[in-house]
C-alpha cells in the first residue's frame, strides 16, 4: 500500500482516525464461514429436535419399522469421540511447535491429526454398516444419518484442508511470522470437533 503523498488537509474536528488492520481478513473470513456452517448444523439439529420432541413421536427411543427400538453404539462412538477430540490437541500441539520454530514438529502434529481424523471417519463408516437401520426407516433415522453424514462430510473437507497445510509445511511455507492458512485450517478443524462433541452428546447420550 502506498503512503499518502502530498499534504493531508486538517481534520474537521471529528474523532481521531481509528487504527485498523488489527483484524486479519483471512481469519475473519474463516470465522464467518464457520459461523454459517454452525447455522447449517443448527438447522439440522432443529429438524432433529422437532422429530425427537415432536407430536409424532410419543415413545422414546422411537421404534424402527420392524418394531424394535433404535439402538446406537454409544460406547464405540464415545471412543471415536475421544479420538477426534485428541486430534484437536495434536493439531494445537503442532501449531505450538511451529511457533517455537520447529517445522518438523508441525509436520508430525499434522500427520497425527490427519491420521486420527481418518480413523474417526473409518470407524464412523463401519458404524453405519452395522447400525441395523437405514435412513429410510423412520424420521429419526433420517435425521440421524443426515446429522452424522453432514458432519462426516465436514471432517472429510477438514482432512483435505489439513493435507494441503501439510504439503505446504513440507515446503517450509509456514513460520512463526506467517502461518495464516494453518491457523484458518485449525479453526475449521476445531469447529468440526466441537460440533461432533455436541452431536455426540445430544444424539447418542441423551
Amino acid at each position, binding site marked *: 500500500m502506498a503512503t499518502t503523498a502530498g499534504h*493531508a488537509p486538517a481534520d474537521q474536528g*471529528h474523532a481521531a482516525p481509528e487504527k*485498523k488492520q488489527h483484524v486479519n481478513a483471512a481469519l475473519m473470513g474463516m470465522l464467518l464461514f464457520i459461523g454459517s456452517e454452525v447455522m447449517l448444523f443448527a*438447522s*439440522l439439529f432443529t429438524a432433529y429436535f422437532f422429530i425427537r420432541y415432536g407430536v409424532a413421536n410419543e415413545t422414546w427411543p422411537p421404534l424402527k419399522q420392524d418394531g424394535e427400538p433404535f439402538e446406537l453404539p454409544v460406547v464405540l462412538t464415545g471412543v471415536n469421540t475421544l479420538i477426534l477430540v485428541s486430534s484437536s490437541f495434536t493439531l494445537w500441539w503442532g501449531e505450538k511447535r511451529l511457533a517455537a520454530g520447529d517445522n518438523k514438529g508441525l509436520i508430525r502434529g499434522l500427520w497425527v491429526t490427519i491420521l486420527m481424523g481418518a480413523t474417526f471417519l473409518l470407524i464412523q463408516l463401519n458404524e453405519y454398516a452395522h447400525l441395523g437401520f437405514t435412513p429410510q426407516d423412520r424420521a429419526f433415522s433420517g435425521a440421524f*444419518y443426515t446429522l452424522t453424514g453432514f458432519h462426516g462430510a465436514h471432517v472429510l473437507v477438514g482432512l483435505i484442508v489439513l493435507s494441503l497445510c501439510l504439503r505446504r509445511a513440507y515446503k517450509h511455507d509456514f513460520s512463526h511470522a506467517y502461518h495464516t492458512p494453518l491457523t484458518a485450517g485449525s479453526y475449521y478443524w476445531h469447529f468440526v470437533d466441537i460440533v461432533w462433541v455436541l452431536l455426540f452428546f445430544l444424539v447418542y447420550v441423551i
Partner: protein
Amino acid sequence: MATHAPAPAHAPGGGHGGHEIHQDPRPVSYWWTRAILGTVAGVLFSFLLLFLLRALFGFEPLYDGAVYGGVAGLIGAIGFLWGIGCFDFWLGWAKGKDISEEDHSFHGVTNWKQYFRVNTDHKVIGIQYLGMTLFFMLWGGLMALLIRTELAAPGQQIADGQTYNGFLSMHATLMIFVFAVPVFGGIANYVLPIMLGAKDMAFPRLNALSFWFLPVAGFMFLASMFTGMFGAAWTAYPPLASQGTMGQTLFELGVQFAGASSIATAINFLATIVTMRAPGMTIWRMPILAWATGVTSVLAVFATPFIAGSQFLTMFDRIMGTNFFVPDQGGDVIMYQHIFWFYSHPAVYIMLLPGFGIISEIIATFARKPLFGYRAMAFSLVAIAVLGFGVWAHHMFVSGMAPWLRVPMMVTTIIIAVPTGVKMWSWLATLWQGKIHIKTPMLWALGFLFTFLLGGLSGVFLGIVPADIQMSDTYFVTAHLHYVLYGGTVFTVFAGLYYWFPKMTGKMYNERLGQWHFWLTFAGTQLTFFPMHWQGLQGMPRRVADYDPRFETVNSVETIGSYMLGIATIIFFYNIITSWKSGPKAPWNPWRGKTLEWMVSSPPPLFNFDVEPQVVGGPYQYGIPDARHAVVFAPEEFGGELTEDTRYPVLIIANETLTSQTLIDEIRSRDSEGLWSFQLVTPVGDGDRAVSERRLATTLAILAESGVSATGRVAEGDVVAVATEAAKEVAPHELVIATLPLAQSQWMRSDSVDKVRKATGVPVSHVIVPPNDARALLGTAALPLVMVVATEAVGAEALATAVRTRADAQPARFTVIAPLDLPDPRWGAEANELRRSAGEAMTATVNALINSGVAVEGEVMDDAASVALPLAIDAYKPSVIIVAGINGEAAGLREAAEAAAGDTPVESVNLGAAAGA
C-alpha cells in the same frame, strides 16, 4: 457495449500506481468450451459413480431418475464452475504453484466479451452481477405477465392448473433468489470498495466464484421448464414439494447455489468493511450504504444456511425416501416451515436493507443536506436485522403450529415497525428544508417513500394475529409483499442504477426516458397492487388460477397495470443500453456528491485509487462551506491532490507516423486513464514543413473528435534537438517517440530514441508503427471524407495540388475515385491498357499525396461514372463530393455525381489546361 475504462499494460512510468497488468491471453471462447466440457464431464461422472455404487451395494433399481438427476445436477454444476475458471487459482496453489506474486491476469476488461469470463475486479463483477440479475428479472417479469394474463378473466386463458402453478413458482423463485437478493450484491460490489477507499474487495477470487454461482442457480431454475416446472411455489412446502419431480430437485439445487453465492459475498463484504477502510474512516464516518451492506451481510451469513438445510431435507425425502416430513413415520410437516422461514424472513430484510442504504445516499445528495440522525439510522439497521431473526413465525400464524408461539411472534413483529419508522421519519427530516433536486434517482427515492410506506402499514395489519388469520394466504398478502418489494427493492434498485450509472459507464443516461420509466412504473405499481388489498379481504385466496367471477373487473384492471410495468421496464433497458453505447460523456461527479466514489474518474481507474485516500470528515457534510469527506491523492510520482481537471503532460514526438492508427490508438488508450494531456511535437528535420503540418493538423483533428485534449506544433531541427528542447519546456511525465520500423526509419537508424533518453532524462516509450499503417486511411469517422472524382485529371499535378490545398483548409480524409468508361470487350487489350494506365496514374497521385502528408486512398472503378459513382458513394459515404476536371471536361462526371449524390453536396474544381503528371 463500449470499452470499460481500464487500459492494457503500459511502459514503465505509466499510471495505476505501478501495477503492471498482463491480461490472460486465452480468449473467452476457451473458457466456455472448458465450462461445457466440465458440465458434461460432471454429469457423466456422476452417472457412472452412481451406477457403480448402486451395482456394488445392490440398490434396486439400478437407475433412479430422481437420484441421478439430483447428483448429476450438483456435480455438473461444479464441473461448470471448474471449467469457467473459478477454481484455477486455488487448484494451482494446491498443486504447489508459486503464489508470492500478485496475479492480476484476470483483472479488468478491455472489451465487452470479457464480461463473460472469470474476473477479479470488483467493478467488473458488479456489472456481471447486474447484467445477470437484470436478465433473471426479465424472466421473472415475463412469468408475472403470464400470471396476470391468465388472471385477466375467470376461467382458463392460457394455462392449465399445473402450468399456472409453474408460472407462479418460477416468478417468485427467480425474483427472490436470483434477482432481489443478489442485485444489491452487484451494486454494492461495484460501489462499496470505492466508497471505503479500497482498491478492491477483501477476497477478489472468492468474489468471482460468488458471482458464477448465480448463473448456475438461475439456469437450474429455468432448466426446469424442460423437465416440468416446479409447482410448489417458492416456499416449497412439503408434502406438496416432496411430490414434485425433477423440476423440484432443480429448484432445491438452485437454491443451494444461490445461497452459497449470497453467503460468500456477505463474508467478502464484512471482511472488506472491517479491514479495508481508508485511513481516517471510522465506522461513524462510513457512508450509510456501508452500514446497510454490513448488516445485510451478517443476516446473509447466519440466516441463509437455514434455507439450505430445509432444501436438503425435502430433497432427501424425495430422492432418498427419508421421512422428515412423513407424519406416519415420525416426521413433522410444520418443522419445514419453521426452518424455511427462519431464513426467509431475514431474507426479506436482505432484500430491503441495502435499498434503505441506497435511498439514504440519494436523499442526502439530492436534498443537499446531511442524512438526518446518522447514528439512529445505523442503529436502526442493526435493530431491524437483530429483531428480524425473531419474527419468522408470523408467516405461520395459520399453519397449525404451537398456538402459544403466535403472541410472542406478534409482539416481535410489531416491534420491528419502530426502527423502520425511525428510518422513514429520518428520510423525511432530511428532505425538510433541503434543496431538493428532482432528477431520476431522486424520483425513485421519493416513489420508494410513498410505496414502501403503504407496504409497511399493511405489514402492521398482518402482524396482528386475529387480523392475519383473516388475511393470511389471500391477495392481501400478495398486495403487501409487492408493495414492500416493489417499493423497497425494485424502486431502490432503479434509484441506485440511475444514480451510479454515470460512474459505472462514464456516460449519462437519458433523463427524460428515466422520468418516463419512473412515472409509468409508479402508476403501474399502484394500479396493479392496490386493488389486491380489497380482493384479499373480500375472499380471493393466493396462488389460484381461477376465481369467483365477482373479482373479474379488479383482476382485469390489475392485468392492465402489470402490462404498464412491462412497458416501463422496456423503456429502462432501452435507456441504459443506448446511453451506454452513445450517451454523453459523464463527469466525475455529476451529482456533486461527497462520498469517495465521486472523487475518481467515471469509470474509475483499474485499481480505484493510485494512492490511498485520507478521510477527514463525515460523509454528508453538506451545508458546511469547505467541508470535506476525504482527500484523494494523485499517483505517487506526482503528489498532491487528484481532481477532475488534473492533467499531467505527455510529450509525443512523431512525424511520418503521425496519422497512423497505432499512434492514435496509443494516445486514446492513455487518455482513457484520465491523467494525461498530450503535446505533439513534430521535428521536421530536412523534410517538407508543409507536409508535416498537414499530417499534424489531421491528427489533432481526429484526436479532438474523440475528446482527447491535445495540442501540437511543428519544429525545425532534428529529432534529438527538438525533443530535448520540448522536454525542457513542457517538463513531461513521459516522452513517447513513434517511428517506422528500422528499415524505413531514419530516426531509428541514427539511434535517436536512446539519444533522446539520455539527453532528456525523462522516461521514453518507443512506439513502432508498421509502414502500411502509417500510410493507411484512418478507419474512423473522425474526419469528414472528401470524395474526389476525376478521370483524366488523375495523375495531374494540378489535382494533387488542389487536394493539398483543400487539406490545408480543413483536415479531412480523401478518396480519389476514377470511374473508367471501358470499351467493349471489357477484358480486351484496349480495356486492359486503359486500366493499367489509370492504375499507374492513381498510384502516382496517391503516393504523391501521402508523401505530402495527406490522408488519402484511391480507387479505380471498372464502370462508367453513372454506374460506379452510386456504388462508391454507398460504400464510402462521403460528406462532400468534388468533381475535378481539366478544362471543363468534367461536365459528364458532374451530372453523374449529382444524380448519385442524394443529399451530399457536390462541388466542382476546374484544374486548368495543364495535363500529365
